[in-house]
């Protein structure tokens, strides 16, 4: 229950920080920044869904975590780490071709890793873990 509340608090803090960062600029919002903001919103939506699931489980008297949810988390983490290696290789390749600031590249990499993790979790959560 505490961890579910913590997820909501962190998601709210990230959203507020991003909102301040993107909408406080005087030069207006660039299309790239809008894309970054969209990806952050997607990641936050995933975190909120995750937090809601934990919260509703705790509310209905069920455990927030059990052996299946732990295995799904572990498998999603392992898969996303593996796929992220290719993402970083792609980012290194792109950084050679396109001139981008280092903080933009690192930001894109971190956001990409979060999106990959969310996709892996959704896929494994729906397909299940068989014969392991």
């Amino acid at each position, binding site marked *: 229950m505490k961890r579910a509340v913590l997820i909501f608090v962190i998601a709210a803090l990230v959203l507020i920080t991003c909102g301040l960062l993107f909408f406080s600029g005087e030069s207006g919002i660039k299309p790239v920044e809008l894309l970054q903001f969209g990806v952050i919103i997607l990641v936050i939506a995933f975190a909120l869904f995750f937090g809601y699931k934990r919260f509703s*489980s705790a509310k*209905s*008297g*069920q*455990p927030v975590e*059990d*052996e*299946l*949810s732990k295995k799904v988390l572990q498998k999603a983490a392992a898969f996303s780490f593996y796929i992220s290696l290719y993402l970083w290789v792609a980012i290194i390749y792109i950084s050679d071709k396109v001139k981008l600031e280092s903080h933009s590249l690192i930001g894109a990499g971190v956001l990409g890793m979060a999106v990959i993790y969310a996709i892996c979790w959704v896929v494994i959560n729906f*397909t*299940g*873990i*068989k*014969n*392991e």
Partner: protein
Amino acid sequence: MNNRIKEYRARFNLTQDDLAKRVNVRRETVVFLEKNKYNPSLKLAYDIAKVFKTTIEEIFIFDN
């Protein structure tokens, strides 16, 4: 591995939620077990068999 959880659950007149609470897992885990999308740990298999007052072999059918 196949299982007869759904059949036994109906026999004991238990909902997925009831079974989940009795074996201390989430309802989704029971759903995945019934759809054969997840093979439980030995402990969970034992707990489920205990709820249905039978043996693990009776509930879970191993086929190679």
